[in-house]
């Protein structure tokens, strides 16, 4: 059976990818952030999963406003890197894990989650930047296959935080029931506090972010109880992306340990956070 070995929560700000693509990670502006990633990257490099389920949102690239799904899963065997309007990121295309996708779709639909399937999907910075955070130098190919799981965070009403946590729990069950003996990592991406438009543009709420970074480990139910209006008020209109961290957290077992975390302001107009959790739940001898 498949097992979940770790979960990574990380911001997916485009400029973090651009800093890597343009060799600027040692600049004064970026060095603190990338130094903060280092211990997590070292640990993940020693714990390569077979597949990463990446929970993210598209930003007006593959998904237009004709159709806006609440939750969607990619079912392709390959995902091209999107051209978001200024050329594709110079990173490898993403290899899918279609059998796992298929299993997850069926299990989640049978578990009363109304999943949209994407047979064709160009993945934008929401997915590729977290892969770069995990693996800065992939060479010709990323170290693992990927199942994209998309959440609508752009069009109001977004799924509730509680629904996202519930989806994560069902996702965890579905992954653990996959009959192949593979290791899986789950990425929750987006956030932390930021707002791009309006009079509150530039909003950063460090207090909220620090609370969130702690509670995502110890009290996800508390985060799930916040309304979408709470997220928008506290974390900004784009900070509501943080509900995607709850999908990742829900997929992990109750027995997790924090490997590393980091928090830095600013990355572009955003507070950038990272939290890496090892999932001990499936380890021999670990509590169930």
């Amino acid at each position, binding site marked *: 059976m498949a097992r979940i070995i770790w979960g990574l929560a990380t911001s997916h700000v485009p400029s973090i990818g651009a800093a890597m693509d343009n060799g600027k990670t040692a600049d004064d502006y970026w060095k603190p952030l990338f130094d903060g990633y280092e211990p997590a990257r070292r640990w993940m490099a020693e714990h390569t999963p077979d597949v990463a389920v990446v929970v993210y949102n598209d930003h*007006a*690239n593959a998904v237009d406003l004709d159709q806006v799904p609440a939750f969607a899963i990619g079912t392709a065997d390959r995902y091209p890197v999107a051209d978001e*309007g200024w050329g594709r990121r110079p990173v490898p295309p993403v290899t899918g894990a279609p059998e796992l996708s298929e299993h997850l779709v069926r299990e989640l639909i049978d578990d009363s989650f109304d999943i949209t399937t994407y047979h064709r999907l160009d993945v934008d910075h929401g997915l590729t930047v977290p892969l770069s955070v995990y693996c800065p130098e992939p060479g010709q190919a990323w170290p693992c296959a990927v199942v994209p799981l998309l959440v609508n965070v752009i069009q*109001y009403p977004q799924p509730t935080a509680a629904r996202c946590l519930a989806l994560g729990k069902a996702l965890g069950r579905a992954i653990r029931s996959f009959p192949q003996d593979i290791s899986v990592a789950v990425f929750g991406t987006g956030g932390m506090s930021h707002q791009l*438009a309006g009079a509150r543009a*530039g909003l950063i709420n*460090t207090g909220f972010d620090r609370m969130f970074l702690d509670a995502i480990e110890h009290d996800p139910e508390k985060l799930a109880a916040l309304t979408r209006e709470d997220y928008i008020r506290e974390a900004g209109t784009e900070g509501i992306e943080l509900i995607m961290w709850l999908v990742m957290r829900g997929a992990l077992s109750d027995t997790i340990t924090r490997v590393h975390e980091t928090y830095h*302001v600013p990355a572009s107009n955003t507070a950038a956070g990272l939290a890496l959790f090892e999932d001990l739940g499936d380890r021999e001898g670990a509590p169930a």
Partner: protein
Amino acid sequence: MTEARDNYLLDVAASRRGYAINRLCGSLKDPENRRRFSEDEAAYCDAYGLSEEQKKAILERDWTGMLELGASIFYTFKLAMLDQKSMQYLGGVFTGMSTEEFMAAMRSGGRNFG
């Protein structure tokens, strides 16, 4: 230029209202569309069925006005990129700061509305 409200939520009604303007901005992902837009912005707006107000907001680069008319920042940002304007430039526009002031505010820990 239009003064910004605190927040712009792209709710279902705004998605409907802003459909044409978002579709136009989204089309700028494609280099050929960018070329055509730059050649004749007004004709391009007409081809995408923008209302007169929406067209005016696009032609005048009234970034806040676009939001008022149902645009989403993720779409209008593609127009900004065509103009070689950054998200920090837009942040300055929305908040009445210069780009440099806005960037300095971000570097000093962002804007706090606690």
